[in-house]
């Protein structure tokens, strides 16, 4: 039993106060203390005792009394004890201030504490304990610098002052200078080895912060040895156990936390960790209880932040985003600095993202990134948010960073790829491929969306095989492959119903009847659709149609499938079925601009102009005029209307053109890179004669169009060729038409062939023109206009040949043959016109027949003349030949004679030689020397041979000479022939001129006839749909000058015009544009 004794004043007696039996009323004690004038240290002891017993009232009463002015006076010389009392009060208020949560009261407490310490300082400003107290106060206020200064003052006086050392250690710890702090704690322990465990706690914390986990653990364990109930050490050890992240460690950690909780149920740290634990075990009720307690007991911001975070997380996981958001917000407010505790920012960001608050979410994730700039999850989320906010560039940057930081994060690659799809298909494909590879490596199955995207990107790059493999991998096994490879799929259909085969669903019903389940999971629909598109692109329309129908069988709302089926039907020229399918699509959504646009195109193809215009208008309205296709179509509509109206007036034409231009320009303003609009605008320009500008635009469009497999713009090639044509650059025009035919039409488009023929015609390449037309007839046998044009070409060829100043009989003969053909062609046409209407006037043909026959007769005269001439020439030639022959005979005879002479001479010589030899031999024999006779004989033989050779050679030489001469004669003959021919030619030319005069008469007749038929007028304004009216007029002027077969020329024009209905621009453009929206649809599907 602890007691205090103090002397009773003026006596030897002592008063004994049993400390555990202090009276409840402190005034009793005070009275005694005052009465006995007990020394001030007694006061302090008693006050401290009251404090220990939790009797704060009494404690304060005694201390306040002990620091009153009376006491000051009375005990004025007892300086130390007075200071001690003041310091005790100061410490008490410091503590109150420290634990007070309300800012105002906190301030009040601190002010009181400061006053007491100041008072103590006034008594003795060098008292170290006062300074220590002040330091603690400053520490509590968070003023580390001044606190440190206060402790330093103490330590300067006494470097072993333990409280000051501890204070300074605390300052250093809070400054984050853990090693300095550790040194100080160690010194404190050296100076005062028996100091309480708390000092070791400091060492533990420092070591922990310094990462010396083992030593930290030892320190905490030592604390527990000294004080088994030290909650802080328990919690610290528990935390360390938890952080081992091993099951065993976590269990031990949780045990320690529980112990701590049992010892002292209000330790916020333990509560938070327990809550954390129960969060992971899913006991949300406990989490709430624990965290609420923790919140109630803790005033420490970070601690509270943790508690709120736990609470928020609990609600978050339960899906209560509103509440979770609120608590995350509270948590964020408590910690206020992301560096201290970043998790609530992350959580808050997630919740806000979930609730659609992108901006808020973004700022929170950005805070996370401030702390952890390389956090992939956050980077991905930030990237995602940027995408949602439409800030693609930033999103790209962030995602690229994410993939760089963690090149094994398949998700990041997928996100990056999706982002790149619209801007950089190649990059997107690479990203997707990487993601697929990563997933494969980690043994995960690639999601169908990823495979779909890879497939589509390959598809768009034209790598159809890769695309097909990918789509097949994405689809896996299913009823689709069964159907596609099954013969039953192409079921027997009555041929009358076969026209409706693209909406036939019986196939699937039959399969179901057979017990085969026709399943198609929704997530595979898009891929199946894309696969069907691929099949279509590889021209397997049949299989594609089966897949589209399968989609529609299971998902009748899938509008795109209807549109594609309609497109297939349209490609096969089954217009009615196509329109029906579009009708089905419109049943799904009657405002669908794609369907409406396609319907408009179909109606135009069906020659339903008024309806088409209405449909295009509807399409335009359905998209608020934003869909450029509808506007373009209307523009085209107006353009065609300008050129085609039967009763055309210049005014009407101008209005339509103006309207077309306006529409094209409007689209261009909205989409400056719209090729079709640019093309259209250039067409209108060309129509107005501004060829150079038009050419520039066409050239640019052509360049731009040759980039993608989905953009097929033959129109621009044709238009460019038209411009070349109009400018008289025929060779270039021919090349352009030919390239276009080959590149886009597999040489099957008769309209372009007709343009080509016309260019040949203008370039006066008659045979090329004719061949081109014959090819066109072969391709389009029922187009009688082409036959007519071929006839005209032959007629023109003939006239031009007959006009030629120089021509051979062969040429004239071929002219006659050509004319005969022309007559045949025209005659057949006129006979055929009895059978069907092919658009020309019988009279017109009759005129041509007449004209050709007339020409034929004239040609026959020519021909006869030419033949006569040829005959004469032949005769002359014959004479010449005979002369030559005679000459030759003569020369031959001469030569023969010479030869024989020579021969004789030679023979003579030989004879002489032989005689000499013989003579010589004889002499030799007479000599009879050692040389054998045989040898000599040989030699003579050899000499003989030699002689023979030389003779031969000579003879050959002669022959050669002769031949050369002959050639010369022939050349001479030819010259003669030509001279004579030319001389004769004068006649023919004269004749010919007469002929032409006659022909001119014929021409006038024809024109009269034409005028009567009312065709001429239209001819003057009509041109082929190439934009060349002015040029035409220029050229026409030229023809007038030549004053030759004007009618034929005009006929070609008019002829082509009658067949002008399917304008190339219209056709191509619609087809192409239809693909474009579909492609868009695909892309939407990918998302």
């Amino acid at each position, binding site marked *: 039993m602890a007691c205090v004794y103090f002397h009773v004043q003026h006596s030897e007696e002592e008063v004994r106060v049993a400390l555990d039996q202090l009276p409840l009323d402190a005034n009793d004690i005070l009275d005694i203390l005052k009465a006995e004038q007990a020394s001030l240290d007694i006061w302090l002891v008693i006050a401290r005792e009251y404090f220990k017993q939790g009797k704060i009232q009494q404690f304060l009463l005694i201390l306040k009394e002990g620091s009153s002015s009376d006491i000051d006076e009375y005990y004025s010389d007892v300086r130390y004890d007075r200071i001690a009392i003041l310091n005790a009060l100061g410490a008490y208020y410091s503590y109150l201030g420290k634990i007070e949560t309300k800012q105002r009261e906190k301030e009040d407490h601190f002010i009181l504490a400061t006053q007491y310490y100041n008072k103590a300082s006034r008594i003795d400003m060098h008292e170290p304990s006062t300074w220590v107290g002040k330091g603690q106060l400053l520490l509590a206020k968070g003023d580390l610098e001044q606190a440190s200064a206060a402790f330093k003052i103490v330590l300067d006086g006494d470097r072993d002052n333990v409280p000051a050392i501890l204070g300074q250690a605390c300052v250093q710890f809070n400054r984050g200078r853990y090693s300095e702090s550790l040194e100080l704690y160690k010194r404190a322990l050296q100076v005062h080895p028996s100091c309480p465990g708390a000092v070791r706690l400091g060492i533990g914390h420092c070591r922990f912060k310094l990462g010396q986990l083992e030593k930290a653990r030892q320190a905490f364990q030592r604390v527990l040895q000294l004080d088994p109930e030290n909650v802080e050490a328990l919690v610290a050890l528990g935390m360390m156990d938890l952080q081992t992240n091993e099951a065993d460690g976590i269990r031990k950690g949780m045990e320690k936390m529980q112990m701590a909780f049992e010892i002292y149920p209000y330790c916020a740290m333990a509560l938070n960790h327990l809550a954390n634990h129960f969060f992971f075990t899913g006991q949300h009720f406990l989490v709430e209880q624990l965290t609420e307690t923790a919140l109630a007991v803790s005033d420490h911001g970070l601690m509270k932040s943790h508690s709120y975070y736990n609470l928020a997380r609990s609600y978050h996981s339960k899906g209560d985003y509103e509440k979770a958001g609120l608590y995350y917000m509270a948590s964020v407010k408590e910690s206020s600095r992301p560096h201290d505790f970043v998790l609530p920012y992350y959580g808050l960001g997630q919740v806000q993202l979930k609730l659609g608050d992108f901006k808020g979410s973004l700022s929170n994730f950005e805070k996370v990134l401030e702390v952890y700039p390389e956090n992939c999850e956050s980077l991905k989320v930030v990237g995602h948010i940027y995408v949602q906010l439409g800030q693609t560039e930033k999103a790209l940057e962030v995602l690229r960073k994410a993939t760089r930081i963690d090149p094994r994060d398949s998700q990041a690659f997928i996100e990056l790829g999706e982002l790149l799809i619209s801007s950089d298909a190649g990059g997107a494909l690479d990203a997707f491929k990487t993601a697929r590879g990563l997933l494969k490596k980690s043994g995960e199955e690639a999601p169908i969306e990823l495979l779909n995207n890879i497939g589509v990107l390959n598809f768009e790059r034209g790598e159809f095989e890769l695309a097909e493999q990918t789509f097949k991998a994405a689809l896996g096994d299913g009823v689709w492959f069964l159907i596609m490879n099954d013969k039953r799929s192409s079921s027997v259909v009555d*041929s009358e119903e076969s026209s409706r085969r693209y909406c036939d669903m019986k196939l699937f019903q039959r399969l179901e009847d057979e017990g085969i389940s026709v399943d198609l999971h929704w997530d595979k629909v898009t891929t199946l659709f894309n696969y069907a598109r691929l099949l279509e692109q590889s021209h397997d329309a049949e299989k594609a149609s089966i897949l589209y129908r399968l989609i529609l069988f299971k998902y009748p709302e899938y509008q795109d499938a209807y549109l594609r089926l309609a497109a297939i039907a349209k490609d096969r020229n089954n217009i009615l079925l196509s329109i029906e399918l579009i009708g089905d699509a419109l049943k799904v959504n009657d405002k669908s601009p794609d369907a409406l646009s396609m319907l408009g195109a179909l109606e135009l193809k*069906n020659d339903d102009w008024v309806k088409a215009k209405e449909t295009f208008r509807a399409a335009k309205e359905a998209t608020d005029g934003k869909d450029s296709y509808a506007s373009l179509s209307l523009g085209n509509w107006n353009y065609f209307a300008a050129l085609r109206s039967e009763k055309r007036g210049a005014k009407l034409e101008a209005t339509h053109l103006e309207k077309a231009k306006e529409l094209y320009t409007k689209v261009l303003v909205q989409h400056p890179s719209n090729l079709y609009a640019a093309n259209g605008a250039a067409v209108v320009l060309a129509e107005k004669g501004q060829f150079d500008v038009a050419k520039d635009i066409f050239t640019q469009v052509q360049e731009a169009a040759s980039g993608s497999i989905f953009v097929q713009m033959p129109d621009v090639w044709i238009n460019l060729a038209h411009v070349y044509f109009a400018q008289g650059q025929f060779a270039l025009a021919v090349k352009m038409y030919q390239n276009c035919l080959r590149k886009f039409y597999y040489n099957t488009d008769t309209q372009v062939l007709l343009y080509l023929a016309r260019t040949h015609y203008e370039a006066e390449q008659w045979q090329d023109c004719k061949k081109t037309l014959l090819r066109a007839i072969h391709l389009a046998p029922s187009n009688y206009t082409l036959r007519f044009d071929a006839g005209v070409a032959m007629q023109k060829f003939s006239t031009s040949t007959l006009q030629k100043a120089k021509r051979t009989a062969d040429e004239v003969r071929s002219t006659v043959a050509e004319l005969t053909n022309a007559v045949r062609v025209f*005659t057949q046409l006129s006979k055929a016109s009895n059978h069907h209407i092919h658009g020309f006037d019988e009279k017109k043909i009759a005129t041509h027949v007449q004209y050709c026959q007339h020409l034929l007769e004239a040609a026959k005269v020519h021909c006869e003349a030419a033949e006569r001439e040829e005959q004469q020439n032949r005769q002359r030639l014959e004479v010449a030949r005979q002369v030559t022959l005679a000459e030759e005979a003569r020369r031959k005879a001469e030569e023969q004679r010479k030869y024989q002479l020579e021969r004789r001479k030679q023979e003579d010589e030989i004879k002489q030689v032989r005689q000499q030899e013989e003579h010589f031999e004889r002499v030799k024999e007479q000599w009879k020397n050692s040389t054998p006779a045989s040898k000599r004989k040989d030699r003579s033989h050899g000499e003989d041979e030699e002689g023979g050779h030389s003779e031969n050679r000579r003879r050959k030489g002669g022959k050669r000479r002769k031949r050369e001469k002959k050639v010369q004669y022939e050349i001479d003959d030819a010259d003669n022939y030509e001279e004579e021919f030319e001389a004769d030619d004068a006649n023919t030319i004269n004749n010919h001129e007469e002929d032409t005069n006659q022909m001119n008469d014929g021409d006038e007749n024809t024109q009269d006839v034409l005028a009567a038929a009312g065709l001429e007028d239209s001819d003057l304004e009509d041109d082929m749909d190439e934009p060349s009216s002015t040029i035409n007029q220029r050229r026409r002027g030229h023809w007038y000058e030549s004053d030759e077969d004007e009618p034929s020329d005009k006929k070609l024009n008019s002829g082509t015009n009658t067949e002008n209905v399917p304008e190339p621009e219209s056709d191509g453009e619609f087809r192409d544009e239809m693909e474009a929206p579909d492609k868009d649809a695909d892309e939407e599907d990918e998302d």
Partner: protein
Amino acid sequence: MKLAGLKSVENAHEESVWAVTWIPATETRGALLLTGSLDETVKLWRSDELVLQGTNTGHCLGVVSVAAHPSGVIAASASLDSSIRVFDVDTNATIATLEAIPSEVWKMQFDPKGTILAVAGGGSASIKLWDTATWQLIDTLSVPRPESSKPSDKSGSGKFVLSVAWSPDGKRLACGSMDGTISVFDVARAKFLHHLDGHYMPVRSLVYSPIDPRVLYSASDDAHVHMYDAEGKSLIGAMSGHSSWVLSMDVSPDGGALATGSSDRTVRLWDLGMRAAVQTMSNHTDQVWGVAFRPPGGAGVRAGRLASVSDDKSISLYDYS
């Protein structure tokens, strides 16, 4: 079932080659290849080396079709000027010149017995039948106009007859027209039977299966080949794969394969059992206007041959096995 290139003749003609057929072997010689071209000539080639055997002239404008009599003795060639020249294969002597103005001449075929030459009459909307003994026109099979003609029909192109095919038993005659309809006739009664629908673009080639007189194949500009039951009036199957018009077609003598030539510059071989393309030959550089399987027979020639001709002026010969 596959094709293997044997021989190609570049510049076989001076211009596009538009028609090809095999002249069956006779006792004195093997089968010959007959080709017709835009250059207005018809040429005879000896297989397998494709040695030029003879060049026939006498046509105006391009030669659009050729046909061989089953006997192998006579053949016919037709040109754009609507005339047919019938000639002796070995002597090139003109036997007859046939014209039925204003009826044009497109595809033509001798009946299996060789007594009638059927000619697709173009704008006359009819098939012209010529007696091969007298070379007189014996009948005209007209395609009836549908009662309600479609609004999309352009005048004149309605029932323009382009192609013609005899059934292997000689009882039926089918013709294809510009608007895609196919008409089937009973030859003996000279009666129109019915239409086969499904195509909406010109049908340029028709051929009956040599093993089943009911089965008719059709090739159209819509890039499809259809397979009809010509008696039952039903569509049995449709095959797609060409990227442009299918211009020509022939069935192998065993009836198991179909060869098609297209303006997409390829020749495709189709397995009729699987109804799928099994091979694509891309040796031509322009439209393939004709394909023809060599008929069996002749001096021990068993090997299958396919010939193709093209706008690129060349002829190609393949081994079919």
